[in-house]
């Protein structure tokens, strides 16, 4: 009699490795398809019958971790099929960040990413502090400066532009190279892209809403607010970025130098953005702590927390600098703020920041696939 339970057949039970587990799950999900209305991952899955590592990396980066499919799944643990798509795709996603890292020898940065980010931030802050102390007379460093160019009494404008310009350009290069690797992996053959659809999907976080019911984080109740907190963080970040850009135009185009008045455009943008960038990350950190342990991919916790805390420290020091800029604390706060901003910039290619780049890439691919099918 044929033994139908033996190892003679490939088993649907967990095998080794995150990609193998993701492949197992996608085979199960593709035979079920109940979740296809929840997000983009399952319709993208349905366009395939077999899953290459590139396909799985694409699906993993397409997943927004809304959690709905975990609570909707009739085959989740304790069922013997042990389906847990959010957790598995989070693990594949984290692996993919390391795999796309440029240059290669920095890929280890993702292994203990919380530590990497903390060290980078600490070194960066310490560097600015020590340089300011060494290069400035204590009377200047701890003095009160007001009026145009006050910040540059601590750090010359040219030096600031040179250091941050170089860090930013390096990070852009590293991110671009990483994206190139990602795109080669998930799209081995060239195809049309659909940028505008992807911009809309990303800017609305269309797939962080459980298909319209809402996200799930703590339990099966769709009361999660991560979408709101992410919007606050994301748009807060861009407002701060816009503030810096406007200030640069002011400086080079019009010769108007910081600090600006409270009602000036760069300060308004930075303040509104900064407040978003305080509330958003705090909300995301709390949501992370409350997340159902069943869905948590433990290896990713340090990376997530490191990145969110970095954003939070950047915004808090920025707002403090605004409030206390006319006091003797300005020099110290400037060093702190610039330290965190610099640390943030240089670690962009080696932190959770990359999730935005790869997820956007995945959305671009998905929009094109949807159009073609």
């Amino acid at each position, binding site marked *: 009699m044929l033994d139908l339970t033996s190892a003679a057949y490939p088993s649907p039970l967990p095998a080794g490795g995150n990609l193998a587990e993701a492949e197992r799950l996608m*085979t*199960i999900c593709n035979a079920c398809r109940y979740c296809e209305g929840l997000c983009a991952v399952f319709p993208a899955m349905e366009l395939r019958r077999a899953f290459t590592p590139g396909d799985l990396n694409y699906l993993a980066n397409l997943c927004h971790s809304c959690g709905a499919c975990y609570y909707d799944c*009739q085959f989740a643990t304790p069922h013997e099929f042990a389906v847990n798509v959010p957790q598995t795709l989070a693990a594949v996603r984290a692996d993919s960040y390391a795999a796309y890292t440029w240059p290669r020898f920095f890929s280890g940065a993702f292994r203990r990413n919380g530590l990497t980010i903390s060290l980078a931030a600490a070194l960066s802050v310490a560097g600015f502090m020590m340089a300011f102390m060494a290069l400035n007379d204590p009377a200047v460093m701890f003095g009160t400066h007001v009026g145009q160019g006050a910040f540059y009494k601590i750090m010359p404008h040219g030096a600031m532009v040179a250091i941050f310009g170089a860090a930013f350009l390096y990070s852009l290069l590293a991110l671009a190279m990483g994206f190139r690797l990602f795109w080669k992996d998930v799209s081995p053959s060239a195809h049309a892209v659909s940028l505008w659809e992807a911009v809309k999907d990303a800017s609305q976080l269309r797939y962080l809403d459980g298909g*319209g019911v809402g996200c799930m984080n703590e339990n099966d109740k769709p009361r999660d607010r991560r979408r709101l907190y992410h919007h606050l963080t994301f748009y807060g970040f861009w407002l701060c970025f816009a503030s810096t850009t406007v200030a640069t135009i002011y400086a080079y185009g019009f010769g108007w130098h910081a600090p600006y008045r409270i009602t000036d455009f760069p300060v308004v943008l930075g303040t509104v953005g900064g407040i978003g960038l305080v509330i958003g990350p705090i909300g995301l950190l709390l949501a992370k702590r409350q997340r159902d342990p069943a869905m948590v991919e433990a290896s990713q916790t340090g990376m997530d927390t490191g990145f969110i805390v970095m954003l939070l420290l950047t915004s808090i020091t920025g707002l403090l600098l605004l409030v206390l800029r006319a006091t003797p604390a300005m020099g110290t706060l400037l060093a702190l703020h610039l330290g965190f901003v610099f640390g943030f910039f240089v670690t962009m290619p080696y932190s959770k920041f990359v999730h935005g780049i790869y997820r956007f890439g995945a959305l671009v691919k998905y929009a094109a696939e949807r159009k073609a099918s």
Partner: protein
Amino acid sequence: MPDFTRRFDVLIIGGGNAALCAAISARRAGASVLVLEGAPKFYRGGNTRHTRNMRCAHDTATQHLTGPYTEDEFWDDLKRVTQGHTDEELARFTIAQSKEMLSWIGEQGVRFQPPLGGTLSLGRTNSFFLGGGRAMLNALYLTAEALGVEVVYDAEVTDLDIDDGVFLSATAVFGGQSVNVRAGALVAAAGGFEANIEWLKQYWGAAADNFLIRGTPYNRGTILRMLLDHGVQEVGDPTQCHAVAIDARSPRFDGGIITRLDCVVFGVVLNKHAERFYDEGEDFWPKRYAIWGRLIAGQPDQIAYIVFDAKSLNAFMPSLYPPITAPTIRELADRLELDPDRADATIAAFNSAVVPGSFDHTILDNCRTEGLTPPKTHWALPLDTPPYYAYPVRPGITFTYLGTRVNRDARMIMNSGKPSANMFSAGEIMAGNVLGRGYAAGIGMTIGSVFGRVAGRTAAMTVRN
């Protein structure tokens, strides 16, 4: 933990779609409601966990339904699939009520979506739950609990105190404790008995040991048995169950939708003697879907093998397990532990009987065999393109037909013909009233919702009067 010293207005036994619809409607009618679910929280909801849609009549297309599905058309479909084994009054009542169910279920928090990939044929008639049956259950539980319905999981009801058709109390065991639960009315929505192999064996003998149960292992029919033993009139053929062909490698229980195989039309089906035994090209899904479970149950050892070739590998929905494959029919037979000579002879005989035609799996095409017994009357293509593939299949039991007779208030009818004073049933436990035979996709959920809602409302009214 609920206060068991009190007397509840309505006790609901079961935790699926019918039970929750009853709980919500009884609570909305002002009753205090206790739900005793026999399964642990994850497995709550019986076979509703594995469902994905419900069939409701509607006069116009909607956001998610591609066209109208009138009451008359629904009735025609029901008459056809049951071959007349239905109670026309209750069936027409179900269909009429189903029209309201789409919006009523939506008001209870359940969301719908367009038909799933691979199910376009149901896009006009059936409404699909966003996220499937477990998502539907989650929404119903959320609503029920917000309304103040009390739910206890892992609560096995071991005895019912029924006196002359009047429900008095139930004995439930949970957490190692036995508790007497008193209530003014009972709604039994605890499913069928398909997971009770011993019970199935009464009708199927040892063959039932080779049956796989597609749904919940908790539908053991204990409540149904108690009710029948207390004089409730039975309905539906006790010997029958709905069976489809599913992958033989599936778990004994709860494999759900992902173990189904619908590739019979693309090849031939062999039994353990490597012989064909039925026309694989007889009809379309869903008719063939529903007959093959029964056919395999009738074969030796209740096992069969769907054999096809490389031409058809990607022609049907992917399933959970990969097919078994080999470069020749003989080697394939070897892997399946079939006699290679006989397998080879069967396939050779089939191939030489195939007459040329133009293959089209969307119509009853002209690809057929000539002079072969049994014939393959449509979609017959020679198996000549290696590698060759096979899926081992067994009968997968979906549900049983035996149930409690009810009237249109969902009130149970006693053997005397008198309606019970305060006992109601809804869902699979009474589906046999409407669906005495056969199956149409999504109709179980319709019966469950319609009778659950009626049962809850009527039970609440009964208690208050």
